[in-house]
């Protein structure tokens, strides 16, 4: 097959859509005022900001006043968790989360432990899921917050958030979900979901990096993370980043319009998984039923992920790995270990994440090159036996 360039690392970041960039440019070239200014330029910007917020609110099924724009998903996660923990510290200091959260959540929880909070990190099953019952069993008298990700960034497992939110409601505990990987990939209506807080990120949905979102259900009291000039209804200081907010709104609009096309992405993903797992001593990680449409995470025994990635990159394919060798840590991915993979199998894992922009030809090419790569590395592996 002729050499191609295939970007298949959409869980890491996505290519900004040209329409999104065009939208953003309006607020850099023309409508660049400060929404807090009372003159014409400011009013123009304020009107645009309100419009963007309304648009996002209608796409997510909430009210505009319930949305706070942040600098990124990580800030939104920090704001939600710290904000809820501090605001409820008098009531209790126990937080429940899972072992497979993104570092933005895990490390915020770890930091809170050092400040005297108690955190339960729930185990997940072999598919990477926690159940609402698991959450309910962990709730204590002093539990104030449950934070469970909507969908996992490495293995794509989707959690039963609606059920978890219902359990939290019944126990009077706040429920927050990091939906950075899910927003735009699966249909989400925050009202129906029943969570108190939800976070999202622009660059995972073809907007630029530097824009995140925090939904805070009306009536939910949380402390501020960033104090300032009273922007975002006094919940986040800092002049609103209108170009990026407009980009986020446009990107979300496109993502929601394209949700029906996710069935095509899902079919491509299923073909990737089906073809690649025909190779011997190869397994798919995560759930086959509760899974993000674009995510394929596969472990190839006896070879190491960074080597796979380098050879794939030479073939023009961008993907990622859970191997320790691709990070500065000695341990492979905490997610793969949490679902019970032995270290040596986790080292040989590859994550391929597709988007609307990928084609069947891309999938053919990935299958061909990844098969060649795996066979080539296994031939030089002292562990591999035919």
């Amino acid at each position: 097959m002729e050499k191609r360039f295939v970007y298949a690392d959409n869980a890491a970041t996505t290519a900004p859509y040209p329409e999104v960039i065009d939208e953003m440019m309006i607020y850099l070239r023309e409508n660049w005022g400060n929404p807090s200014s009372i003159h014409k330029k400011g009013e123009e910007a304020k009107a645009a900001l309100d419009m963007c917020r309304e648009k996002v609110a209608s796409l997510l099924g909430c009210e505009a006043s319930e949305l706070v724009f942040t600098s990124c998903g990580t800030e939104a996660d920090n704001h939600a968790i710290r904000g809820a923990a501090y605001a409820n510290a008098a009531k209790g200091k126990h937080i429940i989360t899972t072992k497979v959260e993104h570092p933005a959540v895990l490390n915020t929880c770890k930091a809170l432990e050092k400040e005297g909070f108690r955190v339960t990190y729930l185990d997940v099953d072999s598919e990477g899921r926690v159940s609402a019952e698991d959450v309910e069993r962990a709730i204590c008298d002093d539990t104030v917050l449950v934070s469970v990700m909507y969908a996992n960034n490495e293995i794509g497992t989707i959690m039963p958030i609606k059920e978890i939110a219902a359990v939290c409601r019944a126990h009077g505990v706040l429920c927050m979900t990091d939906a950075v990987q899910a927003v735009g990939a699966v249909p989400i209506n925050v009202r129906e979901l029943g969570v108190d807080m939800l976070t999202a990120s622009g660059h995972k949905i073809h907007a630029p990096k530097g824009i995140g979102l925090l939904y805070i259900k009306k009536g939910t009291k949380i402390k501020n993370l960033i104090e300032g000039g009273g922007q975002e209804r006094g919940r986040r200081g800092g002049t609103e980043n209108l170009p990026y907010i407009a980009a986020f709104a446009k990107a979300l609009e496109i993502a929601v319009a394209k949700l029906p096309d996710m069935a095509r992405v899902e079919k491509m993903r299923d073909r990737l998984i089906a073809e690649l797992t025909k190779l011997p001593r190869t397994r798919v990680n995560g759930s086959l039923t509760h899974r993000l449409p674009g995510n394929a995470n596969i472990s190839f025994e006896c070879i190491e992920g960074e080597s796979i990635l380098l050879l794939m990159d030479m073939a023009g394919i961008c993907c990622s790995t859970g191997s320790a060798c691709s990070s500065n840590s000695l341990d492979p991915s905490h997610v793969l270990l949490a679902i019970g993979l032995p270290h040596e199998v986790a080292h040989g894992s590859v994550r391929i994440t597709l988007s609307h922009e990928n084609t069947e030809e891309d999938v053919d090419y990935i299958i061909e090159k990844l098969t060649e790569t795996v066979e080539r590395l296994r031939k030089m592996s002292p562990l591999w036996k035919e």
Partner: protein
Amino acid sequence: MYSEKVMDHFANPRNVGEIENASGVGEVGNAKCGDIMKMFLKIEDGVIVDVKFKTFGCGAAVATSSMATEMIKGKTVDEALALTNKAVVEALDGLPPAKIHCSVLAEEAVKSAVADYYKKNGIEKEIPGFCGDCDSCSHCHH
């Protein structure tokens, strides 16, 4: 991240394979840590006339194995024992700090293969700086 030399040795590794009835075989590292190097030496009259390797590991692990085999091929056993991880790193135009341990493994793999050769031939010689017990190495402690 990697130098051109590292990428060259990773993409086109020299001396990959096994040697049947090798004079000495050494294996270092462990699967849990994500890297294992196995080195095969054919030694005649104290000279390494052939060397092959098999490696499970990252790009740096493959490149350091390949470079180490190139550096000891045709050398005497004593010269091979003098090979340091630093020399391997320099020959590769450097490695990222997190990957230096790969070069240590390459040095250990050579020493481990020579130790096996000594053992097979009843040669009672100490190999300086070689402990032979990779599992005790702090790099792999979790």
